[in-house]
Protein backbone atom coordinates (compact mmCIF):
# COMPACT_ATOMS: atom_id res chain seq x y z
CA UNK A 1 0.00 0.00 0.00
CA UNK A 2 3.12 2.12 -0.27
CA UNK A 3 1.72 4.35 -3.00
CA UNK A 4 -1.23 5.50 -0.89
CA UNK A 5 0.96 7.26 1.68
CA UNK A 6 1.22 10.99 1.32
CA UNK A 7 4.85 11.38 2.33
CA UNK A 8 7.29 9.08 0.51
CA UNK A 9 8.66 6.16 2.49
CA UNK A 10 12.35 5.95 3.33
CA UNK A 11 14.23 2.68 3.19
CA UNK A 12 16.11 1.61 6.33
CA UNK A 13 19.30 2.16 4.28
CA UNK A 14 18.58 5.82 3.45
CA UNK A 15 21.43 7.16 5.61
CA UNK A 16 23.88 4.79 3.94
CA UNK A 17 22.76 5.89 0.47
CA UNK A 18 23.23 9.53 1.44
CA UNK A 19 26.72 8.79 2.79
CA UNK A 20 27.54 7.06 -0.52
CA UNK A 21 26.55 10.20 -2.42
CA UNK A 22 23.47 8.70 -4.03
CA UNK A 23 21.09 10.83 -6.02
CA UNK A 24 17.70 9.95 -4.55
CA UNK A 25 14.39 10.05 -6.42
CA UNK A 26 10.82 9.30 -5.48
CA UNK A 27 9.74 6.04 -7.07
CA UNK A 28 6.45 4.24 -6.37
CA UNK A 29 6.03 6.12 -3.12
CA UNK A 30 9.56 5.50 -1.88
CA UNK A 31 12.71 7.60 -1.78
CA UNK A 32 15.15 5.36 -3.63
CA UNK A 33 18.72 5.75 -4.92
CA UNK A 34 18.71 6.50 -8.67
CA UNK A 35 22.47 6.38 -9.03
CA UNK A 36 25.70 6.61 -7.06
CA UNK A 37 28.85 6.83 -9.23
CA UNK A 38 26.82 6.94 -12.46
CA UNK A 39 24.57 4.62 -14.42
CA UNK A 40 27.20 3.46 -16.94
CA UNK A 41 29.84 2.71 -14.31
CA UNK A 42 27.35 0.88 -12.10
CA UNK A 43 26.00 -1.09 -15.06
CA UNK A 44 29.47 -2.20 -16.14
CA UNK A 45 30.39 -3.18 -12.58
CA UNK A 46 27.41 -5.57 -12.45
CA UNK A 47 28.32 -7.13 -15.81
CA UNK A 48 32.01 -7.50 -14.91
CA UNK A 49 32.02 -7.99 -11.14
CA UNK A 50 29.04 -7.33 -8.87
CA UNK A 51 26.59 -4.70 -7.69
CA UNK A 52 24.58 -4.26 -4.52
CA UNK A 53 20.96 -3.06 -4.78
CA UNK A 54 18.54 -1.79 -2.13
CA UNK A 55 15.15 -3.06 -3.29
CA UNK A 56 13.26 -2.49 -0.08
CA UNK A 57 10.48 -0.84 -2.08
CA UNK A 58 9.41 -4.17 -3.57
CA UNK A 59 6.28 -5.75 -2.09
CA UNK A 60 6.46 -9.03 -0.16
CA UNK A 61 3.23 -10.92 0.42
CA UNK A 62 3.03 -14.11 2.45
CA UNK A 63 0.32 -16.67 1.67
CA UNK A 64 0.07 -19.59 4.05
CA UNK A 65 -2.45 -22.32 4.77
CA UNK A 66 -3.72 -25.70 3.65
CA UNK A 67 -5.27 -24.20 0.49
CA UNK A 68 -2.44 -21.78 -0.33
CA UNK A 69 -1.43 -23.60 -3.53
CA UNK A 70 -4.99 -23.98 -4.75
CA UNK A 71 -5.83 -20.40 -3.87
CA UNK A 72 -2.85 -19.01 -5.76
CA UNK A 73 -3.65 -21.22 -8.74
CA UNK A 74 -7.03 -19.45 -8.81
CA UNK A 75 -5.59 -15.95 -8.26
CA UNK A 76 -2.60 -16.09 -10.63
CA UNK A 77 -1.94 -17.21 -14.21
CA UNK A 78 0.61 -19.89 -13.30
CA UNK A 79 0.05 -22.99 -11.21
CA UNK A 80 2.04 -22.63 -7.98
CA UNK A 81 0.78 -26.11 -6.93
CA UNK A 82 3.32 -27.52 -9.40
CA UNK A 83 6.18 -25.68 -7.72
CA UNK A 84 8.56 -27.78 -5.62
CA UNK A 85 9.34 -26.53 -2.13
CA UNK A 86 12.38 -24.26 -2.35
CA UNK A 87 11.73 -23.24 -5.93
CA UNK A 88 10.42 -20.07 -7.56
CA UNK A 89 8.36 -19.26 -10.64
CA UNK A 90 7.81 -16.10 -12.64
CA UNK A 91 4.10 -15.40 -12.66
CA UNK A 92 1.43 -12.81 -13.32
CA UNK A 93 -1.74 -11.62 -11.74
CA UNK A 94 -4.28 -10.60 -14.38
CA UNK A 95 -7.54 -8.72 -14.33
CA UNK A 96 -10.69 -10.63 -15.35
CA UNK A 97 -10.31 -9.15 -18.87
CA UNK A 98 -6.83 -10.68 -19.23
CA UNK A 99 -4.91 -7.43 -18.75
CA UNK A 100 -1.84 -7.58 -16.52
CA UNK A 101 -2.18 -6.27 -12.95
CA UNK A 102 1.42 -7.12 -12.11
CA UNK A 103 4.24 -9.52 -12.80
CA UNK A 104 5.42 -11.46 -9.77
CA UNK A 105 7.85 -13.98 -8.46
CA UNK A 106 6.23 -16.76 -6.45
CA UNK A 107 8.50 -18.64 -4.04
CA UNK A 108 7.40 -21.88 -2.39
CA UNK A 109 8.86 -21.92 1.11
CA UNK A 110 6.93 -24.97 2.32
CA UNK A 111 4.06 -27.26 1.35
CA UNK A 112 1.62 -24.64 2.63
CA UNK A 113 3.82 -21.52 2.58
CA UNK A 114 4.35 -19.17 -0.35
CA UNK A 115 5.99 -15.78 -0.68
CA UNK A 116 5.07 -13.43 -3.51
CA UNK A 117 7.29 -10.54 -4.54
CA UNK A 118 5.39 -7.78 -6.35
CA UNK A 119 6.41 -4.48 -7.90
CA UNK A 120 6.45 -1.55 -5.49
CA UNK A 121 3.98 0.43 -7.57
CA UNK A 122 1.48 -2.43 -7.55
CA UNK A 123 1.96 -4.11 -4.20
CA UNK A 124 -1.09 -2.45 -2.67
CA UNK A 125 -3.34 -3.42 -5.58
CA UNK A 126 -1.93 -6.96 -5.62
CA UNK A 127 -2.44 -7.29 -1.88
CA UNK A 128 -6.06 -6.12 -2.20
CA UNK A 129 -6.74 -8.41 -5.16
CA UNK A 130 -5.26 -11.42 -3.39
CA UNK A 131 -7.33 -10.69 -0.28
CA UNK A 132 -10.45 -10.76 -2.44
CA UNK A 133 -9.50 -13.76 -4.58
CA UNK A 134 -8.30 -15.87 -1.64
CA UNK A 135 -11.31 -15.08 0.58
CA UNK A 136 -12.91 -18.50 0.01
CA UNK A 137 -9.70 -20.47 0.51
CA UNK A 138 -8.19 -21.65 3.79
CA UNK A 139 -5.21 -19.30 3.72
CA UNK A 140 -3.76 -16.39 5.65
CA UNK A 141 -2.53 -13.48 3.55
CA UNK A 142 0.04 -11.23 5.22
CA UNK A 143 1.36 -8.11 3.49
CA UNK A 144 4.91 -7.89 4.84
CA UNK A 145 6.06 -5.19 2.42
CA UNK A 146 6.83 -2.60 5.08
CA UNK A 147 8.43 -5.14 7.44
CA UNK A 148 10.75 -6.69 4.84
CA UNK A 149 13.94 -5.34 3.30
CA UNK A 150 15.23 -6.78 0.05
CA UNK A 151 18.90 -6.45 -0.81
CA UNK A 152 20.18 -7.91 -4.07
CA UNK A 153 23.74 -8.80 -5.00
CA UNK A 154 24.06 -9.33 -8.75
CA UNK A 155 26.96 -10.09 -11.07
CA UNK A 156 29.52 -12.83 -11.70
CA UNK A 157 31.24 -12.27 -8.33
CA UNK A 158 27.99 -12.49 -6.35
CA UNK A 159 28.37 -16.06 -5.13
CA UNK A 160 31.98 -15.47 -4.05
CA UNK A 161 30.91 -12.36 -2.11
CA UNK A 162 27.85 -13.87 -0.45
CA UNK A 163 29.16 -17.37 0.33
CA UNK A 164 31.38 -16.44 3.32
CA UNK A 165 28.49 -14.49 4.88
CA UNK A 166 25.81 -17.16 4.78
CA UNK A 167 25.05 -20.67 6.03
CA UNK A 168 23.00 -21.31 2.88
CA UNK A 169 24.89 -23.69 0.56
CA UNK A 170 25.00 -21.51 -2.56
CA UNK A 171 26.48 -24.33 -4.68
CA UNK A 172 23.25 -26.24 -4.18
CA UNK A 173 21.01 -23.22 -4.75
CA UNK A 174 19.93 -23.31 -8.37
CA UNK A 175 18.62 -20.42 -10.47
CA UNK A 176 15.06 -19.65 -9.32
CA UNK A 177 15.54 -21.45 -6.00
CA UNK A 178 15.21 -20.09 -2.46
CA UNK A 179 16.47 -21.20 0.95
CA UNK A 180 15.96 -20.07 4.54
CA UNK A 181 19.11 -19.41 6.52
CA UNK A 182 21.25 -16.55 7.75
CA UNK A 183 23.23 -13.74 6.15
CA UNK A 184 25.70 -11.87 8.37
CA UNK A 185 24.16 -13.69 11.34
CA UNK A 186 20.65 -12.44 10.54
CA UNK A 187 17.70 -14.70 9.67
CA UNK A 188 17.24 -14.34 5.92
CA UNK A 189 15.66 -15.76 2.81
CA UNK A 190 18.25 -16.21 0.08
CA UNK A 191 16.97 -16.58 -3.48
CA UNK A 192 18.97 -17.06 -6.67
CA UNK A 193 16.88 -14.60 -8.65
CA UNK A 194 17.37 -11.14 -10.09
CA UNK A 195 16.57 -8.58 -12.72
CA UNK A 196 19.92 -7.98 -14.38
CA UNK A 197 20.66 -10.93 -16.67
CA UNK A 198 23.54 -11.94 -14.40
CA UNK A 199 23.95 -14.61 -11.77
CA UNK A 200 22.99 -13.20 -8.41
CA UNK A 201 20.97 -13.36 -5.25
CA UNK A 202 18.11 -11.58 -3.57
CA UNK A 203 18.27 -11.50 0.22
CA UNK A 204 15.13 -10.78 2.21
CA UNK A 205 15.42 -9.82 5.89
CA UNK A 206 13.48 -7.96 8.52
CA UNK A 207 13.80 -4.18 7.96
CA UNK A 208 15.55 -3.83 11.32
CA UNK A 209 18.38 -6.04 10.03
CA UNK A 210 18.79 -4.40 6.62
CA UNK A 211 21.77 -2.30 7.71
CA UNK A 212 23.72 -5.27 9.05
CA UNK A 213 23.23 -7.22 5.82
CA UNK A 214 24.00 -4.23 3.58
CA UNK A 215 27.18 -3.38 5.50
CA UNK A 216 28.41 -6.98 5.42
CA UNK A 217 27.80 -7.29 1.67
CA UNK A 218 29.44 -3.91 1.00
CA UNK A 219 32.50 -4.89 3.02
CA UNK A 220 32.79 -8.36 1.48
CA UNK A 221 32.09 -6.96 -1.99
CA UNK A 222 34.64 -4.18 -1.85
CA UNK A 223 37.66 -6.46 -2.36
CA UNK A 224 35.91 -7.99 -5.38
CA UNK A 225 35.05 -4.65 -6.96
CA UNK A 226 31.37 -4.61 -6.09
CA UNK A 227 29.65 -1.21 -6.09
CA UNK A 228 26.26 0.05 -4.94
CA UNK A 229 23.83 0.26 -7.86
CA UNK A 230 20.75 2.45 -8.19
CA UNK A 231 17.47 2.16 -10.05
CA UNK A 232 18.97 3.82 -13.15
CA UNK A 233 21.38 0.97 -13.87
CA UNK A 234 18.79 -1.56 -12.73
CA UNK A 235 16.70 -0.34 -15.66
CA UNK A 236 19.48 -0.53 -18.26
CA UNK A 237 20.56 -3.97 -16.99
CA UNK A 238 17.04 -5.43 -17.22
CA UNK A 239 16.51 -3.87 -20.63
CA UNK A 240 19.67 -5.46 -22.07
CA UNK A 241 18.48 -8.74 -20.58
CA UNK A 242 15.14 -8.33 -22.38
CA UNK A 243 13.18 -8.37 -19.14
CA UNK A 244 9.86 -6.50 -19.11
CA UNK A 245 9.10 -3.65 -16.73
CA UNK A 246 5.60 -3.04 -15.42
CA UNK A 247 4.41 0.34 -16.67
CA UNK A 248 6.57 0.04 -19.79
CA UNK A 249 6.16 -3.39 -21.39
CA UNK A 250 3.41 -4.63 -19.06
CA UNK A 251 0.15 -3.06 -17.97
CA UNK A 252 -3.62 -3.42 -17.78
CA UNK A 253 -3.99 -2.98 -21.55
CA UNK A 254 -1.51 -5.76 -22.30
CA UNK A 255 -1.99 -9.51 -22.17
CA UNK A 256 0.87 -11.88 -21.30
CA UNK A 257 0.68 -13.23 -24.87
CA UNK A 258 1.39 -9.83 -26.41
CA UNK A 259 4.39 -9.51 -24.12
CA UNK A 260 5.71 -12.85 -25.37
CA UNK A 261 5.08 -14.35 -21.94
CA UNK A 262 2.38 -16.87 -22.80
CA UNK A 263 4.48 -19.44 -20.95
CA UNK A 264 3.32 -17.98 -17.64
CA UNK A 265 -0.34 -18.58 -18.54
CA UNK A 266 -1.16 -22.16 -17.60
CA UNK A 267 -4.37 -22.78 -19.53
CA UNK A 268 -3.98 -26.52 -18.89
CA UNK A 269 -4.30 -26.22 -15.11
CA UNK A 270 -7.46 -27.60 -13.50
CA UNK A 271 -10.22 -25.32 -12.35
CA UNK A 272 -11.02 -21.70 -13.04
CA UNK A 273 -8.65 -18.81 -12.47
CA UNK A 274 -9.17 -15.07 -12.68
CA UNK A 275 -8.86 -14.06 -16.32
CA UNK A 276 -9.11 -17.59 -17.74
CA UNK A 277 -11.94 -16.98 -20.23
CA UNK A 278 -10.35 -13.80 -21.57
CA UNK A 279 -6.88 -15.35 -21.78
CA UNK A 280 -8.22 -18.48 -23.55
CA UNK A 281 -9.80 -16.21 -26.13
CA UNK A 282 -6.61 -14.14 -26.44
CA UNK A 283 -4.59 -17.32 -26.95
CA UNK A 284 -6.99 -18.54 -29.63
CA UNK A 285 -7.22 -15.19 -31.43
CA UNK A 286 -3.47 -14.56 -31.43
CA UNK A 287 -1.91 -11.30 -30.27
CA UNK A 288 -2.91 -8.05 -32.00
CA UNK A 289 0.59 -6.72 -31.31
CA UNK A 290 3.89 -8.22 -30.26
CA UNK A 291 6.75 -7.12 -28.08
CA UNK A 292 10.00 -6.98 -30.04
CA UNK A 293 13.59 -5.91 -29.56
CA UNK A 294 14.90 -3.11 -31.76
CA UNK A 295 18.50 -2.37 -32.64
CA UNK A 296 18.43 1.32 -33.56
CA UNK A 297 20.62 1.94 -36.62
CA UNK A 298 21.06 5.66 -36.21
CA UNK A 299 21.78 8.35 -33.71
CA UNK A 300 19.48 9.07 -30.82
CA UNK A 301 17.66 7.01 -28.26
CA UNK A 302 14.23 5.57 -28.93
CA UNK A 303 12.45 6.32 -25.67
CA UNK A 304 9.22 5.21 -24.00
CA UNK A 305 6.21 6.51 -25.93
CA UNK A 306 7.95 7.28 -29.25
CA UNK A 307 6.08 6.08 -32.34
CA UNK A 308 7.27 3.27 -34.62
CA UNK A 309 6.58 3.41 -38.37
CA UNK A 310 6.69 1.19 -41.43
CA UNK A 311 7.03 3.72 -44.22
CA UNK A 312 4.49 6.38 -43.29
CA UNK A 313 2.25 3.98 -41.42
CA UNK A 314 2.37 4.03 -37.63
CA UNK A 315 2.70 0.39 -36.61
CA UNK A 316 3.76 0.53 -32.98
CA UNK A 317 5.16 2.28 -29.96
CA UNK A 318 8.42 2.18 -28.03
CA UNK A 319 8.06 0.82 -24.49
CA UNK A 320 11.68 1.22 -23.27
CA UNK A 321 14.91 2.41 -24.80
CA UNK A 322 18.44 3.27 -23.86
CA UNK A 323 21.98 3.25 -25.09
CA UNK A 324 23.12 -0.27 -24.28
CA UNK A 325 26.20 0.18 -22.10
CA UNK A 326 27.39 -3.33 -23.00
CA UNK A 327 26.82 -3.14 -26.76
CA UNK A 328 27.54 0.58 -27.17
CA UNK A 329 24.47 0.81 -29.44
CA UNK A 330 20.98 2.18 -28.87
CA UNK A 331 18.45 -0.54 -28.10
CA UNK A 332 14.74 -0.50 -27.45
CA UNK A 333 11.70 -2.65 -26.91
CA UNK A 334 8.48 -1.88 -28.75
CA UNK A 335 5.00 -3.19 -29.40
CA UNK A 336 4.47 -3.56 -33.14
CA UNK A 337 1.91 -5.14 -35.44
CA UNK A 338 2.50 -8.92 -35.70
CA UNK A 339 3.31 -8.54 -39.43
CA UNK A 340 6.29 -6.31 -38.51
CA UNK A 341 7.52 -8.43 -35.59
CA UNK A 342 9.77 -10.77 -37.59
CA UNK A 343 13.50 -10.41 -36.83
CA UNK A 344 15.26 -8.65 -39.67
CA UNK A 345 12.33 -6.33 -40.40
CA UNK A 346 13.39 -2.70 -40.74
CA UNK A 347 11.13 -0.13 -39.12
CA UNK A 348 11.54 3.56 -38.35
CA UNK A 349 11.35 5.26 -34.98
CA UNK A 350 10.16 8.86 -34.71
CA UNK A 351 12.89 10.53 -32.66
CA UNK A 352 11.99 14.21 -32.44
CA UNK A 353 11.75 15.44 -36.08
CA UNK A 354 13.57 12.46 -37.60
CA UNK A 355 12.69 8.92 -38.65
CA UNK A 356 15.54 6.73 -37.47
CA UNK A 357 15.82 3.19 -38.89
CA UNK A 358 15.79 0.25 -36.51
CA UNK A 359 15.97 -3.49 -37.05
CA UNK A 360 13.75 -5.99 -35.27
CA UNK A 361 16.06 -8.34 -33.38
CA UNK A 362 15.47 -11.31 -31.09
CA UNK A 363 15.42 -10.70 -27.33
CA UNK A 364 17.44 -10.59 -25.14
CA UNK A 365 20.04 -8.09 -26.32
CA UNK A 366 22.52 -9.52 -23.83
CA UNK A 367 22.98 -13.03 -22.52
CA UNK A 368 25.71 -13.89 -20.06
CA UNK A 369 28.23 -16.55 -20.97
CA UNK A 370 27.54 -19.47 -18.60
Amino acid at each position, binding site marked *: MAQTHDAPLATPLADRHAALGARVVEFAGWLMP*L*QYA*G*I*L*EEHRAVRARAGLFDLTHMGELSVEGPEAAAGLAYALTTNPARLAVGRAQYSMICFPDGGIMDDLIVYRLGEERFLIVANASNSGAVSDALAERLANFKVVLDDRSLATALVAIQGPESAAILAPLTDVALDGLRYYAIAEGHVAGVAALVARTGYTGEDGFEVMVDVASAGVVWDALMAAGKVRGAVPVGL*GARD*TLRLEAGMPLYGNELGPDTTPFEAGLGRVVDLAKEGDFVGRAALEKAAADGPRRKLVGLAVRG*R*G*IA*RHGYDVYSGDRRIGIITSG*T*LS*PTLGEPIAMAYVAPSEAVPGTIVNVGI*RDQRVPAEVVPLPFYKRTP
Partner: protein
Amino acid sequence: MVPQDLRYTKEHEWVRIEGDMATVGITDYAAEQLGDVVFVELPELGRSVTQFAPIGVIESVKAVSDLFAPLNGEIVEANAELSNAPELLNSDPYKTGWMLRIRIADAKQLDDLLDAAAYEALTAEP
Protein backbone atom coordinates in the same frame (compact mmCIF):
# COMPACT_ATOMS: atom_id res chain seq x y z
CA MET B 1 32.57 27.02 -7.63
CA VAL B 2 31.91 27.70 -11.30
CA PRO B 3 34.52 29.40 -13.51
CA GLN B 4 34.39 33.09 -12.66
CA ASP B 5 35.28 34.37 -16.16
CA LEU B 6 32.23 32.85 -17.89
CA ARG B 7 28.64 33.96 -18.34
CA TYR B 8 25.69 31.63 -17.81
CA THR B 9 22.07 31.02 -18.77
CA LYS B 10 19.24 29.89 -16.53
CA GLU B 11 19.12 26.76 -18.68
CA HIS B 12 22.65 25.88 -17.54
CA GLU B 13 24.69 26.80 -20.59
CA TRP B 14 28.00 28.55 -20.07
CA VAL B 15 29.36 31.17 -22.49
CA ARG B 16 32.95 32.34 -22.98
CA ILE B 17 33.16 35.68 -24.78
CA GLU B 18 36.25 36.40 -26.90
CA GLY B 19 35.73 39.42 -29.17
CA ASP B 20 32.67 38.70 -31.29
CA MET B 21 32.89 34.95 -30.63
CA ALA B 22 30.99 33.04 -27.97
CA THR B 23 32.03 29.53 -27.02
CA VAL B 24 29.15 27.55 -25.50
CA GLY B 25 28.87 24.47 -23.35
CA ILE B 26 26.80 23.13 -20.49
CA THR B 27 27.74 23.58 -16.87
CA ASP B 28 29.04 20.93 -14.51
CA TYR B 29 25.75 21.24 -12.63
CA ALA B 30 23.77 20.47 -15.80
CA ALA B 31 26.01 17.51 -16.67
CA GLU B 32 25.63 16.17 -13.15
CA GLN B 33 21.84 16.44 -13.32
CA LEU B 34 21.71 14.71 -16.70
CA GLY B 35 24.01 11.87 -15.70
CA ASP B 36 26.06 9.96 -18.28
CA VAL B 37 25.73 11.79 -21.62
CA VAL B 38 25.60 9.36 -24.57
CA PHE B 39 24.54 11.49 -27.57
CA VAL B 40 24.84 15.10 -28.60
CA GLU B 41 22.97 16.63 -31.54
CA LEU B 42 24.38 20.00 -32.61
CA PRO B 43 23.11 22.51 -35.19
CA GLU B 44 24.72 22.66 -38.64
CA LEU B 45 27.40 25.23 -39.34
CA GLY B 46 26.20 28.52 -40.76
CA ARG B 47 22.80 28.29 -39.12
CA SER B 48 21.44 31.47 -37.55
CA VAL B 49 20.23 30.93 -34.03
CA THR B 50 18.01 32.95 -31.72
CA GLN B 51 18.71 33.66 -28.09
CA PHE B 52 17.09 31.13 -25.72
CA ALA B 53 15.66 29.03 -28.58
CA PRO B 54 16.47 25.28 -28.67
CA ILE B 55 19.31 24.51 -31.08
CA GLY B 56 20.46 21.04 -30.08
CA VAL B 57 19.79 17.99 -28.00
CA ILE B 58 21.72 16.27 -25.25
CA GLU B 59 20.80 12.69 -24.43
CA SER B 60 21.90 10.95 -21.28
CA VAL B 61 21.12 7.35 -20.39
CA LYS B 62 18.08 8.49 -18.44
CA ALA B 63 16.88 11.67 -20.07
CA VAL B 64 16.78 13.91 -23.11
CA SER B 65 17.39 17.62 -22.76
CA ASP B 66 17.45 20.63 -25.09
CA LEU B 67 20.46 22.84 -25.67
CA PHE B 68 19.51 26.51 -25.94
CA ALA B 69 21.29 29.30 -27.79
CA PRO B 70 22.58 31.82 -25.27
CA LEU B 71 22.71 34.59 -27.87
CA ASN B 72 21.60 35.53 -31.37
CA GLY B 73 24.25 34.66 -33.91
CA GLU B 74 25.64 32.24 -36.46
CA ILE B 75 27.04 28.81 -35.71
CA VAL B 76 30.65 28.86 -36.89
CA GLU B 77 32.07 25.76 -35.24
CA ALA B 78 30.90 22.64 -33.45
CA ASN B 79 32.99 20.32 -31.31
CA ALA B 80 33.42 17.27 -33.55
CA GLU B 81 34.97 15.30 -30.69
CA LEU B 82 31.58 15.06 -29.03
CA SER B 83 30.18 12.62 -31.60
CA ASN B 84 32.77 10.05 -30.52
CA ALA B 85 33.21 11.17 -26.93
CA PRO B 86 29.97 12.69 -25.61
CA GLU B 87 31.15 11.81 -22.11
CA LEU B 88 33.43 14.88 -22.30
CA LEU B 89 30.34 16.84 -21.22
CA ASN B 90 30.52 14.97 -17.92
CA SER B 91 34.26 14.72 -17.45
CA ASP B 92 35.43 18.14 -18.66
CA PRO B 93 32.39 20.36 -19.30
CA TYR B 94 34.22 23.72 -19.30
CA LYS B 95 37.19 22.78 -21.50
CA THR B 96 37.33 19.83 -23.90
CA GLY B 97 33.57 19.38 -23.48
CA TRP B 98 32.76 22.69 -25.19
CA MET B 99 29.95 22.38 -27.72
CA LEU B 100 29.64 25.33 -30.11
CA ARG B 101 31.15 28.61 -31.28
CA ILE B 102 28.70 31.32 -32.21
CA ARG B 103 29.51 34.62 -33.97
CA ILE B 104 27.66 37.11 -31.82
CA ALA B 105 25.05 39.15 -33.70
CA ASP B 106 23.94 41.45 -30.92
CA ALA B 107 26.38 42.21 -28.11
CA LYS B 108 23.62 43.89 -26.09
CA GLN B 109 22.22 40.42 -25.37
CA LEU B 110 25.19 39.72 -23.14
CA ASP B 111 23.28 41.71 -20.54
CA ASP B 112 20.67 38.93 -20.49
CA LEU B 113 23.24 36.39 -19.26
CA LEU B 114 24.10 35.65 -15.65
CA ASP B 115 27.48 36.25 -14.10
CA ALA B 116 29.17 33.53 -12.07
CA ALA B 117 27.79 34.74 -8.74
CA ALA B 118 24.22 34.88 -10.04
CA TYR B 119 24.53 31.42 -11.59
CA GLU B 120 25.92 29.96 -8.39
CA ALA B 121 22.99 31.43 -6.50
CA LEU B 122 20.63 29.82 -9.03
CA THR B 123 22.08 26.36 -8.53
CA ALA B 124 22.70 26.55 -4.78
CA GLU B 125 21.02 23.86 -2.71
CA PRO B 126 17.77 25.22 -1.25
